[in-house]
């Protein structure tokens, strides 16, 4: 047999390894679950064991596929943009309970706009803050729903 041997695709091997790791965690968590009252024909452990096993098989197959170089073609991309968006959400996470909901939303808005090529952060921040104020007032004052709030919202 003349197999078309390609070079191993390292990222795919890593994905396979990650799946195996997740499988291990799921199965380990399955062992942590203890059955409780009554007689359960199939206990709460069934699903973690089944899914963990399934993931392990898929992870192993993915590793094999990666080693054989069987992976979809990928366009090169700009990870910087992804970092901007992820950073925006992370910043929101940090800011929301301290500085407040409105500044947190403004930062997320501006970071995302930056990821999409905007070069005017001040304008973006202002638009994001305006949007957040409208949302906050509507949710908190009109609908009576609570959003997490911080320093900025104490003025409302």
């Amino acid at each position, binding site marked *: 047999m003349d197999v078309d041997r390609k070079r191993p695709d390292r990222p795919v091997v890593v994905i396979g390894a990650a799946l195996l790791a997740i499988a291990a965690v799921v199965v380990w968590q399955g062992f942590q679950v203890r059955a409780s009252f009554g007689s359960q024909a199939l206990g709460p452990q069934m699903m*973690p064991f089944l899914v963990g096993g399934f993931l392990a098989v*898929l992870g192993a197959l993915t590793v094999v596929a990666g080693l054989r170089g069987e992976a979809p073609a990928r366009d090169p*991309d700009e990870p910087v943009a992804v970092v901007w968006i992820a950073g925006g959400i992370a910043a929101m*996470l940090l800011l929301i309970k301290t500085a407040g909901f409105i500044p947190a939303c403004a930062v997320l808005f501006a970071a995302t706009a930056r990821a999409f090529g905007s070069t005017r952060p001040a304008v973006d921040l202002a638009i994001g803050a305006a949007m957040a104020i409208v949302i906050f007032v509507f*949710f908190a004052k009109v609908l009576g729903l609570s959003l997490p709030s911080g320093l900025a919202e104490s003025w409302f």
Partner: protein
Amino acid sequence: METLSLLLNGLSIAIQPANLLFALVGVVLGTAVGVLPGIGPAMTVALLLPVTFKMDPAGSLIMFAGIYYGGMYGGSTTSILLNTPGESASIVTAMEGNKMARAGRGGPALATAAIGSFVAGTIATALLAIFAPWLAEVAIAFGPEDYFALMVVAFITVSATFGSSRLRGLTSLAIGLTLGIVGIDKLTGQPRLSFGVPDLLDGLEVTTVAVAMFAVGEAMAVAAQRGKEGEGTVEAIRGSLWMTAEDWRRSWKPWLRGTAFGFPIGALPAGGAEIPTFLSYAAEKRLATNPEEFGHGAIEGVAGPEAANNASAAGTLVPLLTLGIPTSATAAIMLAGFQQYNLQPGPLLFVTSADVVWGLIASLFIANVMLIVLNLPLVGLWVRLLSIPRPWLYGGILVFATVGVLAAKASLVELGVVLALGLMAYGMRRFDYPIAPVVVGMILGPMAETQLRRALQISNGDASVLVTSPISATLLAVAVLALLGPMLWARLGWSMKADED
């Protein structure tokens, strides 16, 4: 005939000018709140319920019906335009509808959703009026083993939509099943995959996962491809704003099929709206003359599931009105609404308050008409949203998406989940893993598990219940057919081809 005269009597109440006004106000309010991020129809109704208290029962029920339909339609509008589904029932709509919107076909997508909802809602309401008492009896005969068989059918048919590679499709499904395990086990109260984090005990919110996988993952993937020719551009309008003759031709059958899936499954006490939307999507893809268009904005993939979603909502009224059984969050809120007027839905409601019941059914018709009258002219306006410059459009989508998550559950853990799953979804897109199976696995996995274990618990561990119930035996046979049919077909086709060589 008695049914008809009662219904006509109800309609005559509903079309009084004051009541028409209530219907209009309800639809406007419902749509306005329903488009907000993270607020599905159930929360819309819950928040607006106090508004209706001030009125007489007839007027407030009519407004209530308007709010309900408006909330549902508002939810699909944001799903289609911004890819931020506010409830699990509109996830399928978001999948195909947002692809259409980004290709400049947002107008037809919104229109087919609105008209499909109208068609499905009208047919389903008519079925409700005629068959409700009879259907309710059939529906409660459905036991856990029968539900399990239904889930098996759903899993097998939906797996047809899992994309190009079987390995990657199944991997996505397995990830979804894993996410579905997180939280307290419903049957035994034991925490699973929660790692001692209290915020995870209730499990992951489906909408949180959907927003992270769709809106956030998509935004990251599009941003990363920025600068390349033609990648991720958003066009507000290309071609007709309205549905073309071609769109109508492709939409009407999916509307009817979606209704056929949605109404009966919605009427089952544990049926829900997710399974019929999945089944409708799978059926449309299989029946389509151009299945390769699915995943890139096929109008059938919006028309069918959206009709199924609406028909199932009418279906949930069957057990609610005839048995007093609320089978969805929205129905539970509606029950609370009924009780405000000292009306107890249940077997006696049709006898003791026939005029109110038929008034409600009539107002559902009216609200449906009102919805379409109000919303079709607004389609053009909604679609303009997409002509916002891309940095601000996506900035707005991300703010909208995260606010939606926080409105549903004001927890920072939830926001952390959005970040983690958003990054994962970006990676999955990059390596060509399909996204839909994640959501399918996460929704269907726990349902199937619960029903299977419940069936075995009731039978004291006797597995034969899975095949001795006629309903489940039939459904399992359908599942086997759906699984083996295409294989046999393929083998047959393959062998014929081999003969030709």
